[in-house]
């Protein structure tokens, strides 16, 4: 710790140079830890993806969703997804396979996944673990995604299930690991942390998780579907608050426009390939923390490449449940999630909010 000699401004900063060196050491240590359980080829892989992530423009995929996908939402519902209170992994995987093939129009599941990801991608599965075991992205959903990706030939060490904190991942039932496949760890893991660069979203200055900026070349957004006491609704767009060092700064004015602008950052927008919204369970009131009295077993996965379309669809879903339970609409409570509409509008245009222009395919299995 030191104080710069800028007198009246009382400039106190921490040893950035030391931190920098420390970070380098930690990164090396992590690389060694990664490689200790694999072979030399793995080390080469790590180097390859690091170089690749430094230049997003070198990515093989288009940074924009294709026109057809942008306007489609696939809703796969199953009444058999849960048995004796436990989510059935095989049923979830089946839902996923049906959803992906329907979304892409591919004949095989493998081709459907390959539509979005290459074998040399490093894929981050961003889950939402804030609310603990009962109302976070289900481990069964994240694991099913990882297994599907691995079945297409992607090395399990190149798949990372992640959120901001290891303890939040663990409290949601995930096993934090740097050795098993897929990997699973939080941004607070030694050697990861947040990048030095300051990004601006609205008038908030944020640092992004290195998992987004340095580690991953592609991202899958796996949010939950919840009411939120301040911003109204939390789903795909708001899930990226788990990628910044200061989510507490985003709640002013119902998150508008900060949350929308965060999603517009190139690092997130260009790498986000898929949204797989976990609506197996849904909370229509009292969020974002878990309130069992407002939980419903909805039994759906909602799959799209358009985060705005997914959020609008799920927001309406929440409103339907609220109405059915005799609650006021979010707008009536002064909590309309207007940031979603901002995300759809000029100049951001992150997706389609008008559900008339979105093809919603609902599949019951």
């Amino acid at each position, binding site marked *: 710790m030191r104080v710069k000699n800028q*007198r009246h401004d009382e400039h106190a900063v921490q040893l950035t140079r030391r931190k920098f060196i420390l970070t380098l050491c930690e990164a090396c240590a992590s690389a060694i830890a990664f490689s200790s359980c694999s072979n030399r080829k793995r080390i080469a892989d790590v180097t390859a993806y690091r170089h690749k992530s430094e230049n997003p423009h070198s990515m093989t995929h288009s940074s924009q969703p294709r026109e057809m996908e942008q306007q489609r939402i696939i809703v796969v519902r199953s009444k058999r997804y849960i048995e004796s209170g436990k989510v059935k992994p095989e049923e979830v995987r089946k839902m996923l396979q049906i959803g992906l093939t329907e979304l892409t129009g591919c004949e095989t599941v493998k081709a459907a996944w390959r539509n979005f990801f290459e074998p040399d991608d490093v894929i981050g599965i961003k889950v939402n673990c804030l609310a603990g075991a009962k109302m976070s992205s289900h481990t069964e959903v994240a694991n099913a995604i990882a297994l599907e990706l691995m079945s297409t030939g992607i090395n399990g060490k190149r798949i990372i299930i992640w959120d901001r904190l290891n303890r939040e991942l663990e409290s949601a039932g995930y096993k934090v690991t740097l050795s098993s496949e897929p990997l699973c760890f939080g941004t607070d893991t030694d050697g990861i942390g947040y990048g030095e660069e300051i990004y601006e979203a609205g008038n908030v200055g944020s640092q992004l998780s290195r998992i987004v900026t340095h580690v991953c070349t592609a991202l899958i957004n796996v949010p939950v579907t919840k009411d939120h006491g301040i911003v109204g609704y939390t789903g795909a767009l708001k899930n990226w608050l788990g990628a910044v060092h200061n989510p507490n700064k985003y709640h002013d004015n119902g998150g508008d426009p900060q949350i929308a602008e965060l999603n517009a950052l190139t690092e997130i927008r260009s790498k986000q390939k898929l949204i797989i919204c976990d609506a197996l369970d849904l909370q229509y009131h009292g969020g974002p923390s878990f309130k069992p009295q407002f939980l419903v077993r909805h039994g759906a996965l909602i799959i799209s490449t358009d985060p705005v379309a997914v959020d609008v669809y799920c927001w309406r879903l929440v409103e339907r449940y609220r109405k059915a339970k005799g609650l006021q609409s979010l707008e009536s409570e002064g909590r309309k999630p207007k940031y979603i509409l901002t995300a759809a509008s000029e100049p951001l245009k992150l997706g389609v909010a008008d559900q008339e222009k979105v093809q919603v395919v609902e599949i019951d299995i």
Partner: protein
Amino acid sequence: MNDKLNRRKFMGCIACSIFVTNVQGQQSHREKWEGDLKEAMWYTKLNLKKVRCDLCPRKCVVDDRERGFCGVRENRDGVYYTLVYSNPCAVHIDPIEKKPFFHFLPASLSFSIATAGCNIECAYCQNWEISQRRPEQTDNVYLPPKRVVDLAKHYECKSIAFTYTEPVVFYEYMVDTAKFARRAGIKALMITNAFIEPKPMREACKVLDGVKVDLKAFSEEFYKKICRGQLKPVLRAIEVIKSSNVWLELVVLIVPGLNDSPDEIRQMCNWIKANLGKDVPIHFSRFIPMYKLRNLPPTPVKTLERCHEIAKEVGLRYVYIGNVFGHPAESTYCPNCGSIVIQRLGYKTSASGLKDGRCAKCKFAIAGVWA
């Protein structure tokens, strides 16, 4: 200039740095980042395990497992906790002039501490690397209030300053430390944005001896767009401080093109004179490009001099220019005879023109805390 004192200051700073390094070496801050988990003051429990923070005008409604805007107060199962009690991320021994306090025990040392977090976000924040982070993202040391006072005594500091980030967000830690300090005969100083509700400010003033307020500007627009705060509650808090019998100084960081219009400066100075009196020192400080505001040049010295001139025209007695090394307006002049009572050059301070709180030449009483 008082060279002997400066040598002592230097040794004190070295010793403190060694101390901090040792403490850091003894504990893994990442594992113990919470310090002493302590229930927060100034909040209201709401339904569905929500709480409303009543400490600052933002009045965050915080759900279970969430934090307020400041990032250092967390709702856990309907109880609001401070995560930064006994948990500073910056510990230094500074000359008191660095705060800056120019009318409070000049040439003395101040034991200065800060925790992570702030309740506003200035686009030009000099300390954003700690003020805009959460406590788990900073390197912290475990330092309970009594230990802070013991160290301040050990290093012969006459005051403890709560500074660098925003003491409002570590309110409980500040207040408890200030209570211990008073018993030990050490002064307690708060360096703040004054974005705080009147009640907690009034309570804090009971254990504080001096408050320096960073008045960001005199327009709501600046506060909203550049600082994510509000002017009105700040002015209200400054009035509370002034009425509480603690020493008050003001600093205005002048940002070119944003808060430097002569009209705005004049309005500000008139408000100060009318509501706080002409004896409250005001420092116009130079902006240096920082954090999100790197596209502007440093403030021209001429702009600062113009602000100085306006303040004097309005009738304020003690007006200073800051962050401009060697400027004559760093020193304190007797409002009666104009002679130098406290001479400053950087952190070198000589109060040879001041005798028993009066101008040595004409005996005019100089406002301040001198002993």
